[in-house]
């Protein structure tokens, strides 16, 4: 289609290019890969905006990890991204939460990273019904409490305490991030999204997790076929 109204993305200024180089260096050092949306984030936010974003997301991630640990932090970031329609953040952070849960318990988390696309196709309320069902075991009561609160705050509930204010900051930071990541990663497939976890955390557990998750998927598929 001849899109005559198309915009040409503006080139980055030199401070923005410098900031982007620093960001990519940090991503490679931390995760071992580069996020596909970083350039768009810097372009959309501008140099000062990108600095402010770094401050906001840094404070949110630091606060979440300190309060909840890495697994629940990734659940929070994953659901914030999932609800904003970001495939990359939804899958990537749920994948990370799955790896951490598997590493700690040797068991699969009830919500797989591959559940993100179909959860995103449901209405918000329907998807929450399914999430409640998947986290029904009392082992996950605290996870569900936090996701419910995050959902309530996203819907406009007033913050009541410090925990709520931290969750609000996480929601605001991911709304900013997803403004740029959702358009760039809209068509990504689950298998193309990496676990957004430090490479040292991701390393050894990944193969064992994939084998266990794929075996579970095959078992579920075989059961579904036998019921046809």
């Amino acid at each position, binding site marked *: 289609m001849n899109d005559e109204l198309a915009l040409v993305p503006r080139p980055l200024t030199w401070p923005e290019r410098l900031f982007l180089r620093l960001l990519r260096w940090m991503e490679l050092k931390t995760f071992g890969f580069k996020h596909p949306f970083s350039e768009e984030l810097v372009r959309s936010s501008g140099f000062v905006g990108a600095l402010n974003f770094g401050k906001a997301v840094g404070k949110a991630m630091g606060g979440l990890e300190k309060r909840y640990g890495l697994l629940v932090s990734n659940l929070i970031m994953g659901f914030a991204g999932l609800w904003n329609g970001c495939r990359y953040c939804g899958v990537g952070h749920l994948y990370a939460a799955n790896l951490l849960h598997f590493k700690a318990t040797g068991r699969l988390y009830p919500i797989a990273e591959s559940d993100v696309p179909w959860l995103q196709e449901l209405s918000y309320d329907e998807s929450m019904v399914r999430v409640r069902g998947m986290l029904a075991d009392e082992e996950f009561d605290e996870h569900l409490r936090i996701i419910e609160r995050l959902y309530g705050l996203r819907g406009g509930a007033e913050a009541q305490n410090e925990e709520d204010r931290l969750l609000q*900051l996480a929601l605001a930071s991911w709304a900013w991030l997803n403004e740029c990541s*959702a358009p760039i990663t809209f068509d990504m497939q689950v298998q193309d999204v990496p676990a957004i976890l430090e490479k040292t955390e991701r390393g050894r557990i990944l193969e064992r997790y994939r084998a266990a998750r794929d075996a579970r998927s095959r078992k579920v598929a075989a059961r579904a076929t036998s019921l046809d």
Partner: protein
Amino acid sequence: MAQHRFHFTTTPPDRVTIEIGGALGDLIAEELTTRTVDTLANQAGTRLVLIDIRGLTDFTVMARVGLGTCQKLLRRRQIRTAWLVSTPRQHGLATLVAHNAADDGAGVFQTLAQAEAWFASSEGRLEGIMARAKRLT
């Protein structure tokens, strides 16, 4: 792919509601753009457009381009847009269209009340997101 539905409602003096439902195929772009242009021509004072995609079930890449062309038309006329969505996937689609059209006057919402509040304000979408994050930091 199943049939799509467009429904245009003009509310004088300054509002248009576009309901988009069903599955959007490759060929919708021209129809959507033409009907949008015609509707805006019939009400020159339009300042607010509500795009309700809660009934949207599926869409092709070319259909997305068509939505983007409409959004750019609205941006050029400085018309404030509210996208009304009911699923995260629709939220992502509306964000993609608004972002790629570089239209900061287009916001994405789950309720009519939120959309009305958006129409009553003058803050930009990204501008608002950035200000909120900064305030909470």
